[in-house]
């Protein structure tokens, strides 16, 4: 497995056509966004932009509406109030310019599916008819496979691949159709540390090369901490957005949660301690409802545990 190092990512950023500090065009714009299921208000008055080439991590407790936010962007869920535009027009279902990477699930053994087929579904899986072999399609799939370093197992059954390999293919799949925005819903979940690193660096490399806006939902910021431009933190029906240094601070999160929360920074990692258990409701989603809240799974300090 090829692992993209931090150096190659940096080199890619230097090769990018426009400088990082120049203002980029807004890919996604949310104004006064609110989402409510019956009595339960997930968030309201949400205002934020995602610009081209920007990596935004979405953090928050369970049930804070992180995944629901992605559903709204994908057009699968309507905002209760406010507006959301993608590339200047209201979001719609099935927009080809939005790539989507879900959490890794073990692929089913019952499906005839090789690595290249998974990627090919991203290219034309939404069209009716048979997947007839065409040279142009094959070339596109080959290029996508090569761009995520998955050529080696292009013809291997997906069910026999490791979680990291499957997520690599998903990155390739999401890049089909030349998206300008990449939505990642816990893509590192259930991967080991080396694969977490490899997959997040792969996403980072492509957002720099392709000037992609990335919205990265995660319960643990640490694997992507050095790639993140801004953090959108959802909690208690409200939100904060800013650089990790601005948002991941004890006073900011304490105010957001309405109870004392400690943010500990140690050895380049961020650990949030004392987050109140917000999982009384749920996101309207089946997955990651019982995950630990923003914390380092490898650390000794359990989130929501006794505060030191």
């Amino acid at each position, binding site marked *: 497995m090829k692992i993209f190092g931090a150096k190659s990512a940096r080199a890619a950023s230097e090769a990018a056509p426009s400088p990082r500090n120049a203002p980029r065009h807004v890919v996604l714009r949310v104004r006064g966004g609110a989402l409510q299921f019956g009595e339960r208000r997930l968030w309201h008055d949400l205002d934020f932009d995602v610009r081209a080439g920007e990596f935004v991590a979405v953090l928050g407790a369970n049930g804070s509406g992180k995944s629901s936010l992605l559903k709204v962007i994908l057009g699968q869920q309507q905002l209760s109030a406010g507006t959301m535009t993608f590339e200047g027009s209201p979001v719609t279902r099935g927009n*080809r310019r*939005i790539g989507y990477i879900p959490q890794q699930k073990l692929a089913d053994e*019952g*499906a*005839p599916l090789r690595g290249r087929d998974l990627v090919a579904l991203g290219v034309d*899986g939404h069209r*009716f008819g048979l*997947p007839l072999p065409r040279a142009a399609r094959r070339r596109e799939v080959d290029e996508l496979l090569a761009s995520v370093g998955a050529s080696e197992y292009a013809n291997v059954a997906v069910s026999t691949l490791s979680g990291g390999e499957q997520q690599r293919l998903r990155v390739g799949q999401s890049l089909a159709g030349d998206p300008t925005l990449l939505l990642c819903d816990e893509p590192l979940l259930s991967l080991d540390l080396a694969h977490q690193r490899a997959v997040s660096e792969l996403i980072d490399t492509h957002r720099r090369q392709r000037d992609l806006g990335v919205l990265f939902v995660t319960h643990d910021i640490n694997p992507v901490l050095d790639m993140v431009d801004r953090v959108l933190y959802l909690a208690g029906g409200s939100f904060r957005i800013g650089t990790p240094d601005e948002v991941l601070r004890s006073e900011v999160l304490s105010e957001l949660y309405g109870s004392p929360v400690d943010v500990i920074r140690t050895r380049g990692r961020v650990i949030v301690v004392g987050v109140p258990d917000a999982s009384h409701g749920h996101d309207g989603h089946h997955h990651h409802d019982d995950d630990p809240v923003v914390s380092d799974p490898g650390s000794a300090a359990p989130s929501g545990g006794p505060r030191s």
Partner: protein
Amino acid sequence: MNGIDWADLWSQVFNFSDYGDLIVLLQNSIIAGAVLGIVGGLIGVFVMSRDMAFAVHGISELSFAGASAGLLFGVGVVEGSLIGSIVAALIIGFLGAKSRDRNSIIAVLMPFGLGLGILCLALYPGRSANKFGLLTGQIVAVDDPRLNSLIAISIVVVVGLLVIWRPLTFASVDADVAAARGVSVQTLSIVFMLLLGLAVAVSVQVVGSLLVLSILVTPAAAALRVSSSPIVVPLLSMLFAVLSLVGGIMLALGGSVPISPYVTTISFAIYVVCRIIAASRARRGISGRQALV
């Protein structure tokens, strides 16, 4: 002398006298078998990738109930089995979106359907051979109108599958991403259940409701053992299903045993061979990986 007369048993199971005449007589059955093999082999691939083998069994029991009711009330076996399987397929499709829900719904429906079918058969005053045939198959009974209806329904299923092939594959193997990319996962699921209901109904008429799985699941499962190519697997699956059905009918021609044991045995033998091939490949370390260039 007691015990089994082996020579007599053999001639009951395999008997090829007057074979040429019989083939002409059973031409319809052979055509029906070939058509059914294509339908079963093709839809079986999706049955496997959507993990719906149990659903096929459930639908076929309700199809049996419908066919028995059709026989009892004089509506017709074909019509009855069609109604039974479509109702079952839609119930499973609407109520069983999640696989856990689906399995319990099927487990509830299946004995009810079987019981209903047995009730109708018990009340039916006609010959008992007809009754047994609904459960275990009756290849002799394919007359011209029946063959035509079988071919018409099969064309609907095959054309339907070919049209929705790509989005259905996407929705089957990768539902979240398919939905994100704008594929109507729910609509496709209901359309698929309708097609599956039709496929089960035609299969029940030939191989019987107890043995539908040997046509709709075993060939696809065998093909998946030896390939994971989305083109090779459906082709192999159809080939296996046609071989089982046509081969089974040819062997059954002369004997006085029902057709289903021949079909299920060939189908099972193909599956075993495919497993052996897969195991020997795994032992030799063939995985399809290539060196990174």
